[in-house]
């Protein structure tokens, strides 16, 4: 260690208590920042994943305008062959065709309005988590069988079980009256009441028959292995679409615009709080360093009259601050890592928040995202602000006059 570093280090420990208190402020903030940022990003990932895997997939091919209006006649023609062709061209992606219609479903005792999806039984399980949530019976098998799979709450409300028949009444693509009878073969339970209450699935060919779709559907759902992969492949798939039908490609952000914005809104309020924490730490450091400079006025006067320049002293002060900041950084990061790795392994559950969590498609237990980035960013910003806070005390040294300074006691 060279002489300046040694000096700085010793100066730091002249007031052990003050140094530890200042470091304490940093450690507190750093640990908290690491904890909160990891939790936040863990939550966002879950929100995106969970929301997209229920239905939406990473992207969808639709007729223009369908996304906003969801009208029956805004269709993708010959949807099953189209999905098949895309599957052949993009073997790494999961692709399935769907149709959607609204109908009044009646059992012997009850009638409720439900959204009905026509799906490809063979491929739907790859793009949606619903087929995997069958709690009773089985999922759809043949694409033309008059079968239906419904949610658990809906089944309870309609008072139907496996093997019972449902009458569906709705309007077809051309607005004409559509009616059919389908047998309940499976009941799914996602645990989210809204999902379990409000829709049903039937095989796409049977769906097309009932609602006079003439081979058409409403959406081709595409799921990529990862979000990044999805963004990369979107233009390729877009280019592979038949050019004469004006079909459009929507990415997940367009399909679920609420998602990114909910994250953004949450982020801005979180960052407000982080900002305040950092500013408070900076004040703490500013206070400490200013004190340590002021109380050494006499001493600085002597060394300056011995020939040391204010700039050199300034560097000394900055070095002291950097050492202080580094201790805070290391201890805070260690504290943060310990807390975070505990929660990324065990998850965090806040009692009473299950319902709020369910509203955002979150499981009741949240696993933290522990990446070097989420761990380092908070302490790093604190470190930078620590250094900034020392600039004023360091600059004050330039105003020091050696002789006057020596007189101060």
């Amino acid at each position, binding site marked *: 260690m060279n002489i300046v570093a040694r000096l700085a280090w010793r100066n730091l420990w002249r*007031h052990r208590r003050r140094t530890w*208190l200042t470091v*304490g*402020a940093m450690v*507190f903030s750093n640990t*908290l920042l690491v904890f909160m940022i990891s939790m936040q990003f863990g939550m966002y990932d879950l929100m995106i994943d969970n929301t997209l895997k229920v239905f939406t997939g990473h992207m969808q091919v639709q007729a223009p305008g369908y996304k906003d*209006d*969801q*009208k029956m*006649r805004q269709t993708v023609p010959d949807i099953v062959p189209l999905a098949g062709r895309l599957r052949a061209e993009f073997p790494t992606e999961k692709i399935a065709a769907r149709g959607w219609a*609204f*109908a*009044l479903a*009646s*059992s*012997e*005792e*009850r*009638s409720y*309005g*439900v959204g009905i999806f026509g799906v490809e039984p063979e491929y739907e399980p790859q793009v949606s988590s619903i087929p995997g949530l069958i709690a009773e019976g089985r999922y759809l098998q043949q694409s033309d069988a008059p079968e239906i799979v419904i949610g658990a709450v809906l089944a*309870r*409300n309609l008072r139907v079980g496996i093997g019972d028949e449902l009458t569906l*009444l*709705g*309007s077809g693509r051309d*607005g004409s009256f559509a009616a059919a009878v389908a047998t309940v073969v499976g009941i799914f339970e996602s645990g989210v009441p809204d999902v379990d209450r409000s829709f049903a699935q039937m095989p796409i060919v049977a769906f097309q028959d009932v609602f006079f779709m003439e081979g058409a559907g409403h959406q081709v759902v595409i799921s990529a292995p990862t979000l990044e992969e999805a963004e990369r492949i979107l233009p390729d798939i877009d280019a592979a679409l038949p050019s004469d039908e004006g079909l459009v490609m929507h990415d997940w952000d367009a399909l679920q*615009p*609420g*998602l990114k*914005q*909910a*994250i*953004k*809104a949450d982020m801005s*309020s979180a960052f*407000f*709080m982080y900002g*305040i*924490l950092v*500013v*408070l*730490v900076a*004040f*703490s450091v*500013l*206070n*400490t360093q*200013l*004190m340590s400079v*002021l*109380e050494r006025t006499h001493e600085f006067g002597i060394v300056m009259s011995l020939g040391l320049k204010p700039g050199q002293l300034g560097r000394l002060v900055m070095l002291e601050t950097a050492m202080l900041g580094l201790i805070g950084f290391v201890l805070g990061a260690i504290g943060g890592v310990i807390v975070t790795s505990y929660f990324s392994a065990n998850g965090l559950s806040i009692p*009473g*928040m*299950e*319902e*709020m969590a*369910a509203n*955002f498609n979150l499981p009741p237990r949240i696993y933290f995202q522990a990446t070097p980035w989420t761990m380092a960013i908070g302490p790093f910003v604190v470190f930078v602000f620590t250094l900034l806070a020392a600039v004023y005390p360091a600059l004050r040294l330039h105003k020091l006059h050696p002789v006057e300074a020596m007189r101060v*006691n």
Partner: protein
Amino acid sequence: MRMLPVLTRLAWRYLWRNHRRTIIMVSAISVGVWSMIFMTALSRGMVDQVIEDGVSALPGHVQVHNPKFLDDPSVVNRIPIGDAELSRAFSSTDFKAWASRVRVPAVIASEYESRGVTLLGIDPVAEREFGYLSYDDVEGRFLEDADDNGIVIGRKLADKLETRVGKRVVLMSQDPDNEIADRGFRIVGLFDAEVPAFEEGNVFIGKRTAQKMLHIGDTTTEIVFLGDNYRDIEPTYDKVLASIDGSLDVSRWSEVATYLGSMLTVMDGFVLIFMVVIFLALSFGLVNTLVMAVFERVREIGLMLALGMKPSNILGQIIIESMLLLLVGLVIGNLLAVATIHPLRGGIDISVVAEGMEMMGAASVLYPRLYVSDMILANVIVLFLGFLASLSPAWRASRYEPVEAITKVG
């Protein structure tokens, strides 16, 4: 106690001896307090709005149902008491507002499209006070009485159904025998709502028209009562409980919409945690300042002790110093908070994230809400925890041995 004025004066002067340190600390406290109040006002604004919109979309602070209705909202599970009897039972009581209504899931179909909706058969006169819709802002007209033959639907729903005022739609639901009950309606009005889901999901028809359509005589599926405000409904709840048939289910809005109820609780907890966290970040600086203030005048303290000042007075003086510091910070912080929140009363446009707010059930303009109780909470937290934080430095200062302290070198 006799010493209090003197000690306060001493403490005040000490504080300004090192004015730079004091100013830095006061700034830190001010920023901390400001952020506590400001942030709380913003979050309160958002959550209150979500809850209020949610409550007004229910609507009714206290609701009475058949016990089976909430899980299975079918006309089969209606309230077995007719309107005539209800009027007799409640005519003598002094509820702010009450109404009985028919509320069942239904399907609405235009010539092009059909959608699932919640059918609300209401008596528009009795429900005016519930305030979930401003009748006068409806395009066309709102329902006029319980026998009105028209239907009022949301503008968003009308768009999806490709229909408009004057056109006809068909409503389908089920009657108690599970026969399909359907009826054609002419759209007489279109309403707009802050929350899109409300606009898309609810249709209004006259109560008696609904009863006729569903073949349920003069019975209804829910009775709703209005409290003074949504946070203070216990008196109403108790009154309803006392005056209604015990076999029926009486619930608060927070029980009907458990999500909203838990949101309110979580929010109260969050405010407290947020304030304490900010204070803790502050406390290091506070303790540090006090420790330094004691440290640099060890000799003086020794001298005062030698001159006969009691240790308890030294203790008191340091604590008073800390309290003064906090008070100055609090005053500035509170003023700052009021000054920044006041201009934002008209609402902050957050339409950039409108759809995200919609996911949470909020509208796209955020109105900060400054509660006096939150302000008091912030101030009490800072003063109380600040007092605790200053105990240790003050205690140490009062324990100095006079002779040792006086001879201590600088």
